C-alpha cells in the first residue's frame, strides 16, 4: 500500500510539474504598453512569460527563446514587469559563442530596462527572462520586446 502511494506520488511529480515555460503570461495590454516604450522603434515580437516564485537559491526560473537577428540591423530590447517586481527580473541576450553566463548584454548588466544591440552576424541568438540571483520571492509576469531601430549603415 505504502509502495503504491510512493509510486503514484513520484509518477505524478513527473506528469504534473510543469516544464520551463509557464502557462500564464502578462496581459496583451501590458505587452502593448511595453512595445510603446520603444519610442520610434518598430515592434517585431514579444517574449511573454510568467515567472514562478523561486523556492531555492539553486533553482533557475524563467524562459528562453531563440531569435534570428540580421547583420547590420540595430535592435532594441525592452523589459517590462508589473510595478514592484521591476528590479527582480532581467532580460539577457546571448548566443552559442556568448552563453547566458557571459552574454552579449542584459538589462542587469546595462542597469536599465532597455538596451540596443547592433547585430554584426546574422544567425540565431537567444533571449532569456529570469529572476536575478537572490530575487524572486514572489511570482510575477514579465514581457520582453524586440523592436527594429534601423539599419546600421
Amino acid at each position: 500500500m505504502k509502495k503504491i502511494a510512493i509510486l503514484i506520488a513520484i509518477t505524478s511529480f513527473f506528469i504534473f510539474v510543469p516544464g520551463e515555460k509557464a502557462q500564464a503570461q502578462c496581459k496583451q495590454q501590458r505587452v502593448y504598453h511595453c512595445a510603446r516604450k520603444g519610442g520610434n522603434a518598430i515592434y517585431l515580437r514579444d517574449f511573454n512569460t510568467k515567472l514562478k516564485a523561486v523556492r531555492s537559491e539553486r533553482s533557475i526560473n524563467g524562459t528562453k527563446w531563440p531569435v534570428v537577428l540580421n547583420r547590420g540591423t540595430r535592435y532594441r530590447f525592452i523589459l517590462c514587469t508589473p510595478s514592484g517586481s521591476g528590479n527582480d527580473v532581467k532580460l539577457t541576450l546571448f548566443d552559442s559563442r556568448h552563453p547566458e553566463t557571459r552574454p552579449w548584454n542584459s538589462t542587469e548588466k546595462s542597469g536599465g530596462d532597455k538596451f540596443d544591440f547592433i547585430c554584426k552576424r546574422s544567425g540565431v541568438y537567444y533571449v532569456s527572462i529570469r529572476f536575478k540571483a537572490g530575487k524572486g520571492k514572489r511570482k510575477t509576469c514579465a514581457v520582453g520586446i524586440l523592436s527594429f531601430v534601423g539599419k546600421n549603415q
Partner: protein
Amino acid sequence: MIKKLIFIFSVALFFAACGGGGDENTITGPDTQNDVRSVQINPEKINGLIESFPSPIEMAATIEDMKVPYSKKHLVPTEIAADFDSNFDKALGLGMLSADLGYLNVYNRKNAIVEYLTSIKRLADALDVDQFFEFQTLKRLATNSNNLDSLMFLSVTSYHDMDEHLRKTRRSDLSALMITGVWTEGQYLACKVNQFKSDKSTEEIIAGQKDIVKELLGVLEFFDDKPKFKKMNDQFRGLLKLYDTVEIKLIEGEDKISYDQDSIPVIEPGEHTEIIYTQEDLNKIQNKIIKIRNNLISL
C-alpha cells in the same frame, strides 16, 4: 483504499494526457493533399526553430529605413491569393501576405492594407486560425490614420498568435510554411530593391542569408516525406548550393558600448562577419530567390 487511489490517479492521468499541447512528442502533419501520415519529429526542436524566425515586418522596416520608394507592384497580387486551394498553398500565402502587410504598414498605405487584410482573413478562416486574426479591429485601425502604431502591433501579434496556434494544434508543417512565406517574400522584396537600386547594404542582406537558409531548410526538411514539401525543399536546397561560393568570415574585435540621445546603452559587438561574394554569386542567388517566390505563388 488502493482502488480509490488507483481511480484518482487514472482520472488525473487522463486529464494530464488531454491538457495542453506543450508536451506532445509527435507532430502530425495533416493536409498537404490529404496526406494524413504522422511525422515523428522532435516538436521542441522544430517549434524552437520556427519560433526563432524573423517577424513579417522586419524586412519591410529595413527597406523603408533605406529610403526605398514604395512600390505595390512587387507584392503578391490579392487576386492570386484567392486561388490558393490546398492548406499548403494557403499557409505559404498567409506568410507571404503577412510580409506584404508589414510592407504596407510601414509605408502606411491604408487602402491597400484593407485589401490585404481581407485576403489574409480569408486564408486565416480556411486554416481555422481566424480567431487570432482580429479583422474588424485591424480594419478599423487601418482606416483611422492616427492608429498606425496599434495597427502594426496588432498585425504582428495576430501573425505570431496564428503561428503559435498552428504549432500548439500539431500543425507545425503549416507553421513552417508560414515562416517560409515570410522569409521568401522578404528576400524577394530585397532582391527587387537591389535590382532597382543596388548598394552594398542591400547586397549584403541577400548574400548574408547563408546561415538563415540553412536554418530554414533545417525546419523544412522535417517534412521532406511529403511530396509538396519535397518539391519545394529541392528549390531551397538549390538555393543553399548557390551560397557555397559565398564566404562568411568571422572577425574578432573589441566590443563598444555607447549611449544614444535617450541614454539607451548601445552594444556594438567587436566580433563581426565579413561577407565575401562576387557579383556573379549575387546575381545567381537573386535570380534563384525570385524564381522560387514566383514558383510558389503560381502553385
